């Protein structure tokens, strides 16, 4: 029986396509109260006075909370964020007050009636403004904040929340030996996750002390720990339930609404209270994806070998840190892209601005990072007059070399980039990026870009799996990873079915997550679920097989080592007709006389990643993840040189998947990522007004790719270089489809129009402006 490598339909597919699957806010319980926040209408201002009298008079209003009722700071790494603004508001859309009422309508009405006096303060509206010598300080006390999770190095009296260093190679740099040196700057805006399902959380504090939380979270166990930590509870008291999540992309790994809902519930005697983001709130109040301003200096020999890199990444993290220090370290650890460079100096800065704060975003910083790297590589290829694919091939990172933070790369832990590059050349019929004329003002041009990524998870991240057997021999699987789209639960079932050699439709996975009954999975982020959950499931399968054999051995009067398991039977290796069915032993074995031994088969597996460490403060040295997925992406664009309009004809990806567990599943997750990446390249960005107002907080003005605007063709291929320690050799794949798409588009546009397209999104106007605009 073969399950791995087959296109297994997703366990959640039928319920989802028929609209029957239930998401967090689909089930409402009568009597639930609603909490609605009042958002700041200034990006930076002192709160002079808050009058809640009118709001409290609205019929049905139960409580109104302000920053004074929440005198503590929260944060995933650095505790710098008040749940409700304290004294000052630091971004447009920050929650300032919270109204709890019988209904959402009443709470909204009351929230609009809260009267707030502000004294506007100078707004820090960009990274450059934040780093100016006399810039207003967004967090004057940044060095006095509590650090919840090391490391983070805030700089006092600046807007720098964190600074990560990477120093590799000779202190006496190799620049003099370089024949060609290029510099390149890329600037990427903040972007929104734009999940179809906006964030929501419901909290109820029971008289017995238990706290029930229902949330649209990718990180139910992090929610549990945060609430326990901030409200002095035992972790077991906090029960977090995470049903199917309607798109997350990193945005639901941050803990925000859960804290507000807890505070709201506490204010009304523990009654059940829901906080449900409107789309505008989801945009402006809840965290978005980081912006980036990157500067590259690359030096190479004239044969193309890159000798030295000096890189600065400055992240627009917005008003609070959340997971930015982790993202900064992820960028630092992969700062050169998948290329071998012996002499690296890289600085990553987390810069506070008066923008919406930021959090993880599909790729954990690697998409903007990859953009900057691949634009620099392309510029280097131009300067060297080399085919850019050949330049990538020549410098592609290989086993035996080391990462920028000196992690050793082996034939197992890093994918095969040269192979992927060659496969891409065939797949899009690479012509070196030459411009092809196809009409009076129409040209076609290709662009490619490579990427790599590792997990950058904390070194103590855990995952577990529990298998229980039903009487009829079917099995139930319980894991702590949330299903937010990529088919995590199905993959886990597939691994179990393969290990037990049983049909995957006889494996039932718990689709929701409940921290009280499901074993912990650190967070459903970093594309790590297949690896971590998979390892735990493998362990649990070993345990179950051992238990099944032990019981069957008694029934069959033989030694467990005589037995094998397949097809829901345990049988003698040398004589399979001598066997017991799973259904005979799932709930104990009953002898013909009636007496029974053994009980229900319950198996467990548990996993923690080994050999990871935190990066060294001065050199960055350290091992950031268990393995690196590599890949190449390409596009064929058709560009109108008169109007600067363009369309994506083809989009292609070749990724080293290690082993493709579910071909159709893998292809669709990559295609989805490609579409998202093209959306960033071609239209998405958060737009702030000159006063820091979040201008496009609706889908009318924050544009994404819509149906009919996709490429004519998506091409997805995989190469397979197994990661030996991973389940069936599979490498992480979940986020990667997005990573190099914007860079590939920029590389193609730059060639097509003879410009440096370094600042997405690329709308015709930006190309027109780069090509001379008004002056042309």
């Amino acid at each position, binding site marked *: 029986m073969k399950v791995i490598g087959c296109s297994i339909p997703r366990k959640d597919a039928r319920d989802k396509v028929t609209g029957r699957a239930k998401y967090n806010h689909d089930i409402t319980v009568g009597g639930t109260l609603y909490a609605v926040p009042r958002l700041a209408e200034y990006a930076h201002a002192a709160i002079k006075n808050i009058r809640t009298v009118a709001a409290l008079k609205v019929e049905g209003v139960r409580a109104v909370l302000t920053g004074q009722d929440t005198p503590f700071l929260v944060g995933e790494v650095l505790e710098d964020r008040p749940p409700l603004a304290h004294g000052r508001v630091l971004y447009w859309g920050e929650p300032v007050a919270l109204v709890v009422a019988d209904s*959402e*309508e009443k709470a*909204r*009405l009351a929230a*609009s009636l809260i009267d707030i006096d502000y004294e506007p303060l100078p707004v820090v509206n960009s990274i450059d403004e934040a780093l100016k010598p006399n810039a207003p300080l967004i967090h004057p006390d940044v060095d006095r904040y509590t650090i919840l999770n090391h490391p983070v190095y805030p700089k006092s009296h600046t807007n720098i929340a964190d600074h990560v260093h990477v120093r590799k190679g000779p202190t006496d740099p190799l620049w003099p030996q370089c024949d060609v040196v290029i510099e390149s700057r890329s600037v990427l805006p903040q972007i929104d996750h734009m999940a179809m399902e906006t964030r929501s959380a419901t909290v109820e504090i029971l008289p017995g002390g238990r706290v029930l939380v229902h949330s649209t979270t990718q990180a139910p166990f992090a929610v549990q720990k945060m609430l326990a930590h901030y409200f002095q509870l035992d972790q077991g008291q906090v029960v977090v339930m995470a049903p199917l999540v309607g798109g997350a992309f990193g945005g639901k790994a941050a803990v925000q609404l859960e804290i507000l809902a807890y505070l709201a519930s506490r204010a009304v005697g523990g009654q059940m209270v829901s906080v449900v983001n*409107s789309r*505008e709130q989801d945009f402006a109040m809840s965290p978005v994806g980081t912006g980036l301003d990157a500067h590259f200096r690359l030096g190479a020999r004239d044969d193309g070998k890159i000798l030295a890199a000096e890189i600065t990444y400055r992240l627009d993290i917005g008003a609070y840190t959340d997971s930015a220090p982790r993202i900064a370290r992820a960028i630092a650890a992969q700062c050169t892209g998948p290329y071998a460079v012996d002499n690296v100096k890289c600085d990553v800065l987390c810069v506070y601005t008066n923008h919406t704060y930021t959090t993880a975003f599909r790729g954990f910083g690697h998409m903007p990072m990859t953009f900057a790297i691949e634009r620099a590589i392309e510029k280097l290829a131009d300067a060297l007059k080399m085919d850019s694919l050949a330049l990538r091939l020549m410098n592609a990172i290989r086993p035996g070399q080391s990462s920028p933070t000196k992690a050793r790369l082996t034939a197992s832990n890093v994918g095969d980039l040269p192979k992927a590059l060659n496969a891409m050349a065939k797949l899009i019929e690479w012509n070196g990026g030459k411009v092809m004329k196809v009409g009076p003002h129409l040209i076609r041009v290709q662009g490619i870009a490579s990427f790599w990524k590792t997990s950058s998870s904390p070194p103590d991240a855990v995952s577990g799996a529990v298998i229980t057997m039903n009487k009829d021999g079917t099995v139930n699987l319980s894991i702590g990873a949330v299903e937010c789209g990529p088919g995590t639960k199905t993959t886990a079932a597939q691994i179990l079915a393969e290990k037990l050699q049983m049909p995957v439709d006889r494996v039932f996975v718990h689709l929701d997550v409940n921290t009280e009954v499901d074993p912990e999975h650190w967070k459903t982020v970093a594309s790590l679920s297949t690896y971590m959950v998979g390892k735990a499931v493998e362990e649990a399968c070993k345990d179950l097989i051992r238990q099944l054999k032990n019981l069957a051995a008694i029934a069959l009067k033989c030694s467990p080592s005589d037995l094998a398991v397949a097809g829901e039977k345990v049988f003698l290796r040398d004589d399979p007709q001598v066997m017991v069915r799973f259904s005979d032993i799932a709930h104990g074995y009953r002898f013909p006389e009636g007496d029974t031994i053994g009980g229900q088969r319950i198996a467990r597996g548990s996993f923690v990643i080994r050999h990871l460490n935190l990066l060294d403060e001065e050199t960055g040295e350290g091992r950031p993840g268990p393995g690196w997925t590599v890949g190449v992406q390409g596009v064929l664009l058709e560009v109108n040189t*008169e*109007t600067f309009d363009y369309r994506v004809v083809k989009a292609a990806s070749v990724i080293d998947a290690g082993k493709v567990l579910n071909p159709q599943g893998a292809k669709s997750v990559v295609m989805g990522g490609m579409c998202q990446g093209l959306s960033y390249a*071609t*239209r998405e960005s958060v*737009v702030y007004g000159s006063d820091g107002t979040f*201008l*496009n907080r609706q889908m*009318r*003005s924050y*544009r994404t790719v*819509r149906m*009919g*605007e996709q490429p004519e063709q998506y091409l997805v291929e995989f190469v397979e270089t197994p990661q030996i320690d991973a389940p069936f050799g599979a490498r992480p794949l979940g986020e990667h489809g997005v990573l190099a798409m914007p860079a590939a588009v920029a590389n193609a546009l730059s060639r097509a129009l003879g410009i440096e397209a370094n600042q997405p999104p690329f*709308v*015709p*106007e930006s190309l*027109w*402006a780069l090509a001379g*605009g*008004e002056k042309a």
Partner: protein
Amino acid sequence: MMTPLMAYYRPSTVTEAVTTFRQLRQDGHHPAYWSGGTEILTRRRLHEIYPGAVVDIKGIPEVGQHAVHGRDMIFGAGISLWEIARADYWPLLTATADRVADHTSRVQITLGGNIASHLPYREAVLPWMLVDATAWVGTIKGIQTRPFCKLFDGRLVLADDEFLVALQVSRDVASFPYTSRKMTRRDWVNYPLVSISATKDVHTIHAAFSGYALEPFRDDAIDRVLSEEDLPYAVRAERAVAAIPRKAISDIHGSAAYRKFVTQYTLASIIEVLEGGQ
């Protein structure tokens, strides 16, 4: 997701509607005429308006008419833009209406609501600015007719308690050569950087513009330049943009300079299409 509650009335005659409106106004309810309702709802959500009551005009038979009558075509103000495009009585109106918003909204957005919109676009008005049309207006005395050109000057000019009932135009306009182009920042569905409806009678090109300035406009001087048949398309387009008497706007969709650039190449292509047959 609603803010304060809002009373709803659905009269079945014009006089009843206006009477109801006046009464509500007098009682301090800040009423609004409700057609497709999409703008009232979305502006209310953002706390831009607080109508305490709405008077839905779609129950009035004249507001719901949509037909070819003898020599005329008549379009009720309550007909959705989607329905207008589906019936396709007037190809230029179809082309323009069909590009407003996304399908989900377009089945709700009405001709009257679009023309009376507070947003600067009002794209479905463009064809009407190019022809001699008659407007039916709902007043306290019942339905009155007025020339449409007297009623629309960038925005609908009506007394506070009046509303648009229907628009009427000769069937002949349906056979004029026409072009409609909607140019956006990037997307198929979006507000226009510039949206242009154009027709040609014997020798003259008439063009009306939305999105370019703070309200829709047309101008004889622009039409004259566009119609100078001896000049190349590109030259006419360039001169036409120079002749536009309005200031191009800059907003999150595009800068003023870029709007001009887009308007220019779009006009060149419109002239080419309209004169292509000759």
